[in-house]
């Protein structure tokens, strides 16, 4: 399954990993995926499928949540990165934008963005330029630059988290639900930014997203996770055409999009599994 | 074996005082074992138990050692003493609280198992005042005396006595409590600096002593007029202040220095033989001597008990009889290699407190030694006796204690 569907060399390879929280809770039951260099790869799946866990396993943030990768391997540019400190990983160009904002509450918006540049050594001027770039992406942030991040609105915090990730000039960004809580036109914008960075600066993306519709529009390749397993994967356009995906993830029936008001019965889920 | 448990504290805030005492206490018994083969031929054992000056650990120590046939307890803490008074009485084990503890325990009629010979805090307070009387030609009326005290049961002990004596001798008394641990005493000493008392007396313990002496030096209070109780008069109390502590005085009920034959024996049988309880560097220090003295009194009481009961293997109950019949004479002390180490005295059923003789020592900073500058002298029994009767009477009625002596 690994080699299916993509052509470029893999920047990141996740081989059959198993993750256990607190020594007892088995969450990932053998997940494999591969992210090609310069691609946008989407990780889809319902609540609790294990998307966040997968991303954290890659960025090594799991350990601070008392989770462990007990099986399998994660390779970045062919090197095993499982023993790296998360900070070293950032130095190597992999950064994660965490789910649920995680801003530094007491720091101002601008200071938050600047922490993103913590590992950079290319001088104040460059950092300043990038700061302006982020403000250009998110004008709202510029207005609120001096207020403490803890007091900004949910969407503003999401922008801060995103902007902070961009400030580190990474080679690869792990995005965890970037669209959550953002106004519709901003969702489009964010994905446009992703696309731009990807095309113009060659940044590789692995993103976990619930907004399947948008994600599959912008991504090249997608994996669908259910209960800690990859249940389906393929190029984005193929996935978009898959009838199951259409029904369960895109909310389309044969007659096109149907109204939320018309959903009269609860659906059976996880039909790929049980 | 004859068991003399040592409830020591070599850790915690008061370790500096606890270590030399415990060393002295144990070393003396070791000496008896090594030199004399024990007491009356029976070996002595001194199980040590660390209390950390903490009452709960004190209880634990008491309970864990009493089963081993402990003959007498020297709890070395006023708090632990209060706890053990009823317990030892019920268990029929005597307790010796030398120069601390509950002063009114001197009334053996009420406190059958507690002994505090040869002197108590109230003797100390009176002894201090007597010394001032003596140096002032018998009149200290109108003089100002400040009492700097540890704000605890221990520190408050002398207040009643001093208040009585104040009425009698007409001096002015001001009270300056210092809270545990006593690292900050600025207010107290600024007040002293302003009120300029003629004398300062101190009931301190632990770091409070060092800070007080340092602060006294800082405000240039004349050290000769600064007198501490015996728990405020050891080497480690004055050393941090250096030369400025020169002339500081402290009360005592036993002698200082190592000019006694017994120390030669200790050096030979204990220290050089590698059997010292501690590092061996405390020998001859004030508190070491106090521990030694306490051990000597215990050993003598044990001997007395052996004589009374005609058996070498005495029990705690016999030990109590021995303590009640204890007689320390000049000859006895000389024979032990400790001439004039303490006052001579005898104990009786009614009087467990001994004679209450108090001496004064002074610190010489250049030679780093203490010396006895006033011999052991009598204290004001009229005042103290009344206070003892009152306090012990209250205890007896509160706890329905019948008279012990008849």
């Amino acid at each position, binding site marked *: 399954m690994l080699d299916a569907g993509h052509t470029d060399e893999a920047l990141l390879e996740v081989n059959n990993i198993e993750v256990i929280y607190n020594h007892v809770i088995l969450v990932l039951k053998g997940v494999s995926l591969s992210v090609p260099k310069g691609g946008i790869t989407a990780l889809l799946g319902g609540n609790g499928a294990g998307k966040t866990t997968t991303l954290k396993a890659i960025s090594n*943030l799991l*350990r*601070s*949540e008392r989770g462990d990768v007990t099986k399998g391997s994660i390779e970045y540019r062919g090197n095993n990165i499982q023993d790296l*400190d*998360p*900070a070293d990983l*950032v130095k190597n160009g992999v*950064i*994660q*934008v*965490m789910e649920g904002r*995680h*801003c*530094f*509450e*007491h*720091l101002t918006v601008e*200071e938050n963005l*600047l*922490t993103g540049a*913590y*590992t950079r050594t290319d001088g104040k001027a460059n950092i300043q330029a990038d700061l302006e770039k982020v403000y250009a992406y998110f004008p709202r942030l510029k207005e609120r630059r001096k207020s403490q991040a803890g*007091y900004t609105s949910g969407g503003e915090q999401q922008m801060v988290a995103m902007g*902070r*990730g961009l400030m*580190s000039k990474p080679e690869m960004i792990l995005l965890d639900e970037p669209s959550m809580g953002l106004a519709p036109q901003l969702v489009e914008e964010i994905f446009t930014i992703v696309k731009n960075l990807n095309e113009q600066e060659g940044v590789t993306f692995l993103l976990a997203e619930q907004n399947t519709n948008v994600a599959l529009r912008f991504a090249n390749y997608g994996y669908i996770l259910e209960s800690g397993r990859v249940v389906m994967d393929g190029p984005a356009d193929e996935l978009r055409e898959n009838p199951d995906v259409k029904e369960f993830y895109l909310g389309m029936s044969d007659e096109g999009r149907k109204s939320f008001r018309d959903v009269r019965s609860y659906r059976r889920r996880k039909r790929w599994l049980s | 074996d004859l068991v003399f448990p040592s409830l020591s504290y*070599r*850790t915690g*805030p008061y*370790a*500096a005082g606890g*270590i030399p005492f415990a060393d002295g206490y144990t070393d003396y018994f070791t000496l008896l074992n090594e030199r004399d083969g024990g007491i009356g031929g029976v070996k002595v054992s001194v199980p040590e138990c660390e209390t950390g000056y903490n009452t709960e650990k004190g209880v634990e120590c008491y309970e864990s050692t009493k089963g081993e046939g402990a003959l007498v307890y020297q709890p070395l803490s006023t708090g632990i003493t209060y706890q053990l008074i009823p317990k030892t009485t019920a268990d029929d084990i005597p307790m010796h609280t030398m120069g601390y503890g509950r002063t009114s325990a001197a009334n053996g009629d009420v406190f059958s198992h507690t002994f505090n010979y040869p002197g108590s805090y109230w003797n100390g307070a009176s002894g201090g005042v007597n010394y001032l009387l003596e140096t002032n030609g018998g009149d200290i009326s109108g003089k100002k005396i400040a009492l700097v005290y540890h*704000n605890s049961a221990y520190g408050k002990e002398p207040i009643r006595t001093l208040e009585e004596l104040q009425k009698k001798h007409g001096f002015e008394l001001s*009270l*300056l409590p*210092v*809270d545990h*641990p*006593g*690292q*900050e005493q*600025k*207010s107290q000493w*600024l*007040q002293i600096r*302003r009120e300029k008392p003629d004398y300062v007396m101190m009931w301190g313990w*632990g*770091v409070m002593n*060092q800070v007080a002496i340092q602060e006294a*030096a*800082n405000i240039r209070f004349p050290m000769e007029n600064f007198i501490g109780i015996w728990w405020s008069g050891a080497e*480690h109390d004055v*050393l*941090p202040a*250096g030369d400025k502590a020169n002339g500081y005085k402290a009360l005592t009920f036993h002698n200082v220095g190592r000019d006694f034959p017994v120390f030669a024996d200790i050096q030979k049988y204990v220290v050089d033989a*590698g059997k010292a309880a501690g*590092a*061996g*560097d405390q020998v001859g220090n004030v508190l070491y001597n106090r521990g030694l003295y306490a051990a000597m009194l215990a050993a003598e009481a044990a001997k007395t008990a052996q004589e009374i009961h005609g058996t070498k293997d005495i029990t705690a109950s016999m030990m109590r009889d021995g303590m009640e019949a204890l007689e320390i004479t000049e000859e006895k002390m000389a024979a032990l290699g400790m001439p004039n180490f303490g006052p001579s005295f005898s104990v009786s059923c009614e009087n467990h407190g001994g004679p209450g003789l108090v001496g004064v020592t002074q610190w010489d900073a250049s030679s780093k030694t203490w010396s006895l500058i006033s011999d052991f002298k009598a204290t004001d029994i009229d005042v103290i006796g009344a206070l003892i009767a009152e306090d012990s009477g209250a205890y007896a009625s509160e706890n329905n204690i019948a008279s012990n002596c008849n």
Partner: protein
Amino acid sequence: MSEQIVYALEVFANGLMSGVLYALVALGFVLIYKASGIFNFAQGVMALFAAMTLVGIQNGQVPFAHLINAVLGTHIHHFGWHIHSVLALIFTVGVMILLAVAIQRFVFRHLVGQEPIILFMATIGLAYFLEGFSDLMWNSEIKTLKFCVAEGTCLPQGMNMAIDEAAYNAFGTGFFIDNLDISAAIVAVMLVIALVAFSQYTKQGRAMRAVADDHQAALSVGISLNFIWILVWSVAGFVALVAGIMWGAKSGVQFSLSLIALKALPVLMLGGFTSIPGAIVGGLIIGVGEKMFEYCFGTGQCFGGIINLGGATENWFAYVLALVFLVFRPQGLFGEKIIERV
């Protein structure tokens, strides 16, 4: 009457000075709290450990002599040399850095992302450990600390005669200020300036504050918790050493030194856990407040002595004072506002 005023001033000035000494201890707390959200219960013990190490090195004490002797039956205790204070200071700083590394490696590295109360608890364990450890290493007797830069120029102690005389000439009554306090004040001011500069104007300073807010997020942007924590604990160790020297010079180096932490707590709360200048201002307010209260009401020397509580009020008054301030500013005077949002 004027004498009374001078005396009140004297109490006031000495309160300020005591405050500086409290602030020295509080500074260490603030640093660590600011940098990692850890309420470091072990700060007092660290001061003790630092001071003991300094004296031990100065006097050429053999570390763990007691333990070695007990196990091997030897009788060593001193190497028999004396080391110059400044050199010993440098060695001690080295030891404090080692300590910081060890703390990071063996404790906090394993506790990344835990709640504050759990980190607090780890510092409790640390305090226990360090307390036993320093006694094992340097034994528990009182040690006298003399810190001399050169022969004859030691850390000064005792009344400052110049001030006293000047006051005497001016008001006809002396004025007491302790030389040690003056030096402490100078050192404290320098420390505060340096630390403020560090935390406000450097990248590391910003990273420190980020770490305090959210460990995981800090990790995710590439801030190395290991590095930040070692850095901060080293600096805190250094501050502890300074506090240890000042307090140790006053009262000898011994266990009670670790209890000065209790004096620092109200300072910390009043100034705000996260503010370095707050530690100093808080210290001054507490110092003056408790001394003036003791003077006025504790011993009844103001207002004709209408209130005389009989002394020893300082301990609780410091806390009550802090409490009153907190009721009006729940985050302390300069602490970061507690963010309350839903």
